[in-house]
């Protein structure tokens, strides 16, 4: 019994310790897509600013917004724009809209097997393939073989972006196989001669990345760094950071400025995304 009383005491003490965020601490939470980049930024910024401590956690964009409303995080990483309901929740919580900062670009490539004779597709063709309207490669100038679709988990930001901007909001075909990550899609496409998948332009290692035409008349563009940065490659998105405007001052504002400066943007490429165009930088 004594032991139990002792252990109760330990628990009580443990519960009694309350965490309090000290000045100079910045917490970042949100999208797992942005996590590695956020971590890289934090490490390098802390290297040159010894007085600032930054902690980064993931959990998903939805989790990040929930934390922003609860004010348990200073910055919210988001791989998509805030939804109206989330903005409304923020207003209810701290009487202001969260401030949105664009922090990087992400280009999405369409991967096919290296043996595929196909070179280019229009955005509409890609959309038709993934909605299941186009079922055979010969309909888009390939061999006479059924198309196998590889898609992402419906909770991923990549999935949502692809659905909104390439499929124009229509549903993925029921036959699309759901893969747990971009790497799994790449692996599957490499093994499947008639497979097609999508994911970050930097992660397509070994697959053939198709050139994409905006519409029938426009030229086919490769998903290269220059093309994504200049906006000529048609499938790309912004990555965002959201912040409570009341907190956007001092250390946090300085950090946000640094992320969007030339200095901060040079780390973006290391993790497979693309830096902001010059006019959006700080």
């Amino acid at each position: 019994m004594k032991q139990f009383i002792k252990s109760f005491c330990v628990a009580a003490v443990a519960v009694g310790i309350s965490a309090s965020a000290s000045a100079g601490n910045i917490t970042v939470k949100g999208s797992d897509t942005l996590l590695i980049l956020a971590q890289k930024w934090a490490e390098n910024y802390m290297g040159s600013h010894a007085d600032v401590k930054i902690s980064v956690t993931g959990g998903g964009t939805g989790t990040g917004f929930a934390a922003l409303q609860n004010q348990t995080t200073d910055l919210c990483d988001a791989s998509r724009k805030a939804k109206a309901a989330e903005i409304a929740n923020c207003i209810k919580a701290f009487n202001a809209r969260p401030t949105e900062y664009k922090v990087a670009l992400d280009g999405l490539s369409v991967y096919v097997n290296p043996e595929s004779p196909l070179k280019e597709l229009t955005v509409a063709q890609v959309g038709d393939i993934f909605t299941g309207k186009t079922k055979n490669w010969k309909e888009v100038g390939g061999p006479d073989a059924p198309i196998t679709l590889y898609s992402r988990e419906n909770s991923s930001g990549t999935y949502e972006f692809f659905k909104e901007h390439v499929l124009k909001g229509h549903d993925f075909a029921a036959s699309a196989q759901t893969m747990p990550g971009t790497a799994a899609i790449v692996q599957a496409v490499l093994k499947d001669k008639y497979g097609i998948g999508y994911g970050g332009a930097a992660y397509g290692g070994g697959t053939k990345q198709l050139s994409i035409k905006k519409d029938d008349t426009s030229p086919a563009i490769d998903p290269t760094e220059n093309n994504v940065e200049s906006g000529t490659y048609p499938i790309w998105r912004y990555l965002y950071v959201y912040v409570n405007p009341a907190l956007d001052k001092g250390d946090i504002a300085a950090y946000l400025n640094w992320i969007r400066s030339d200095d901060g943007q040079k780390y973006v490429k290391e993790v497979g995304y693309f830096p902001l165009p010059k006019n959006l930088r700080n």
Partner: protein
Amino acid sequence: MGIHRGHQARPVEWLAEKFIFLVSLSAIVMVFLIFLFVAREALPLFFGETNTALVQKPIPTADLEKLSPAKLQQYLELTPAQFAAMDKDTLKSLMDVKQEAQDEVPEEFRNDPDARINTTEWRYLVLPHQWNHYDKPEYIWQPVGQIQKYNIIPLLVGTLKTTLIGLLFAVPLSVGAAIYVSQMARPKMREIIKPTIELLSGIPSVVVGFFALLVMATVLQKVFGYQTRLNAFVAGIALGFAVIPVIFSIAEDALTSVPRAYTQAALALGASRWQTAWQIVLPAALPGVFAATVLGFGRAIGETMIVLMVCSASVMSWSIFDSARSITTTIAAEMAEAVSGGPHYRILFMLGALLFAVTFVSNMVAGAVIQRFKLKLEGKR
């Protein structure tokens, strides 16, 4: 236990007994709380307070003054306390957000009849609906996108598919092994085999999932030659791994608890060991084996990580070589991205409550069967 109750005249004893009694009630309290709080988060769904219609008629911000406070509060989805604490500017910006959300709706969805549907109504949750761009009424779970489709039938089918495959694989194996270990094997062997099989339950499900994803999926695909590498079949077999120790352990206990007199009588009458096991012991222990299966079902239906790692597309298909998405997987994968307190969040909690109800019933059934079985063997019925 042979101790006489008493000593109630002593206050310390009395207090201790009451304290112990109160603490022991915590299990009951917890079961209630679990149901209460999981269901609580899903409640707005049952009261029809969620609306997912993409196109709604926004009230212009300029009309703020014209609205009655009650109507405004309802329109902005505020609690009375929130509403009371808000100044006019905040209310205005909330109304602006509503307006903007409507402005952002893509042109081609403006006239889509689906965009006016509140997809969280019960008929869209359980009945097939012919959505725009589909040829026939279909069951669709596509919670992310302009028009959120929350039909839970594909998830139920996915859950049943993986669970049944798991049970079809696990029940014969583990009951067979239980018969062997309890009836055929020598006692020495038994002492070794039983704990070893129970060791299987010590493998965390995330490790089983990892093994299925990396190793089993490839091997099974080579053996059976199907197209989709990650499918309900792989997930089901992996689920079986997790369920085998549960079924084996309980079935073995049931078989062992059949009185020795039964076996001895049968053997004395000249039956072979196999005949004794099959015709005497197994029928006597059948309720226990049934209970083991039911508990295995509960375990399989509630297993999360294995199915999450192995297959995850919410396809409405009964083919075992297609992908499947179980209820547990859906909750685990989508909760982090769902808007906290939004319709998607509510539906995930509703699925959780449903899952709890199903396992609650299967546990109760199994518990009752085991109880009766024990009484019968003890000759009390």
